[in-house]
């Protein structure tokens, strides 16, 4: 199965990669600015929001699946959108899981920087946006790590994906849900093969990100 990649497995693999990639990118667009505001902003409710984000980092995926299912269920508040058991539902669940991870690690990356750097940059005439851009550049290594952690969280996710996606062949069947299904049937050979593909995929994506990260570390 591994050597003769059949079209069905290829489709499942590509769908896994596509949905996890989209969810990670959306999480980055949410997590990077939100994490920056929480790391640099001085507002009274900051600690409260930080606690929410930190709790979100440890959110049980099955609870996420349940909540999104209730929201998207045909009779639920957003049922009219018809998203339950669609790829979009999977992306929504994955974003809810990955965005707090990216946000929390962005906060940690920026707060780990010397606060005097901000003073120095302002003292050289930086606008707020120029200052933030440079802080991101300086924190590029931990920020890439945040991206890797976000991708790792969604590519390996199964519970929520199964609940909101439904594991429909050709529509919402991804690597993790296929593995669960094959194992349930007692078909260990294809389950192992899919597991190896999942591992390879995670390895390859992280290899690319690590290469980018380490290249910028030594530049």
């Amino acid at each position, binding site marked *: 199965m591994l050597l003769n990649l059949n079209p069905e497995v290829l489709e499942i693999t590509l769908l896994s990669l596509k949905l996890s990639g989209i969810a990670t990118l959306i999480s980055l667009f949410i997590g990077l600015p939100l994490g920056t505001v929480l790391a640099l902003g001085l507002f009274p409710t900051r600690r409260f929001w930080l606690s929410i984000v930190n709790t979100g980092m440890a959110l049980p995926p099955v609870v996420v699946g349940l909540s999104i299912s209730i929201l998207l269920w045909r009779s639920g508040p957003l049922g009219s959108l018809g998203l339950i058991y669609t790829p979009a539902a999977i992306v929504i669940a994955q974003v809810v899981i990955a965005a707090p991870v990216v946000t929390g690690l962005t906060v940690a990356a920026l707060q780990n920087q010397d606060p005097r750097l901000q003073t*120095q940059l302002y003292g050289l005439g930086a606008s707020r946006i120029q200052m933030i851009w440079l802080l991101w550049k300086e924190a590029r290594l931990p920020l890439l790590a945040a991206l890797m952690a976000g991708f790792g969280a969604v590519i390996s996710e199964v519970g929520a994906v199964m609940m909101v996606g439904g594991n429909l062949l050709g529509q919402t069947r991804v690597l993790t849900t296929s593995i669960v299904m094959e194992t349930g049937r007692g078909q260990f050979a294809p389950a192992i093969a899919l597991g190896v593909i999942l591992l390879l995929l995670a390895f390859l994506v992280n290899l690319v990100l690590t290469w980018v990260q380490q290249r910028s570390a030594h530049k």
Partner: protein
Amino acid sequence: MNDVLELQDAVVQRNGREILNVEHLAVRPGEVLTIIGPNGAGKSTLLLVLARLLLPDEGRLLFEGRTLGRGDGLAYRRKIGLVLQAPMLLNASVYDNVVTGLRFHGISKAEQSQRAGLWLEQLHIGHLSGQRAGSLSGGEAQRVSLARAFALDPEIVFLDEPFSGLDTPTRTRLLEEFQLLLANTGKTTVFVTHDMNEALFLGDRVAVILNGKIHQIGAPDKVFAAPASPEVAAFLGVDTTVAGVVITVENGHVVVAVNDQHVEALADVRPGRPVMVCLRPEDITLWDGEDLPASSARNRFSGPITKIVPRGPLVYVEVDCGFAVSAAITRASAREMALEKGKRVTVTFKASAVHLIPRQEAEALPGDPA
């Protein structure tokens, strides 16, 4: 000439505690104003307020006679340069670091290159241009930080103890080069330091800050020769400060009663005025025994040694001559004189070495004649 920068009634509080309270401070065009004070005195806070990197809880900042409002921050910050104690370089090449501010200002690439080249050469780091900032020594990193600030051609340069993290030879060399740089550029400069030598060496004027307040401001030689208060005197290394009362004044020649002794000084005070008598340890000469040759020193007192404290290359000897006098001598002299606690010695000092600080009439202090 109008002041470039003026701070009025500035108050900064932190956790309910007042850490800065400056009624008025002006920076004149082209001058080097050094702000000197001990750790925690509020020097850096004052610098940040002057650079508008910290908004005071009260007070206002005027730049070229105009009060800076809430929306003027960026425009003002683009007229200044800042060098901190830690160079705070980016994880990039030396060149990229030097042009950081120029990029913020939207300067063209050609001009960035021209200005960076000029200032890298001025600070003798042209050969490091392509090197990573992380591989530089402390002195080189601080040169990059200076080049980065001066490349902006700022109207005012703010420096917060830029040389205090460096080893002594590097610091001495950089300080000399920096003085030359300031002389050549004529930049208006605010320089914060806790080091009196740096303040004396660089400053056209010195402001002494203690506990968040400016206690004295003036030409360095005047401030160091005539501290305005016992607190300033103590900070500036005037080890001997004793209370006394002026008993006679004749053509500026003053006799002050300190306990049962008479100290001669040169000052403009009236008889009966309570004063603090201040003496620098380096102005005191210490003699073995009590039979001395005639000299021009008007003050001569004998007594036993009460304390011997070695400090660096010097030894500080405290003598009880009716009031405690501290003298600084070299370690070699201390050895040759075989100084020890209890040994009787004589101290001499000129009337011109005595500085008198007037004090409140009602204030009675140890040393006042009974």
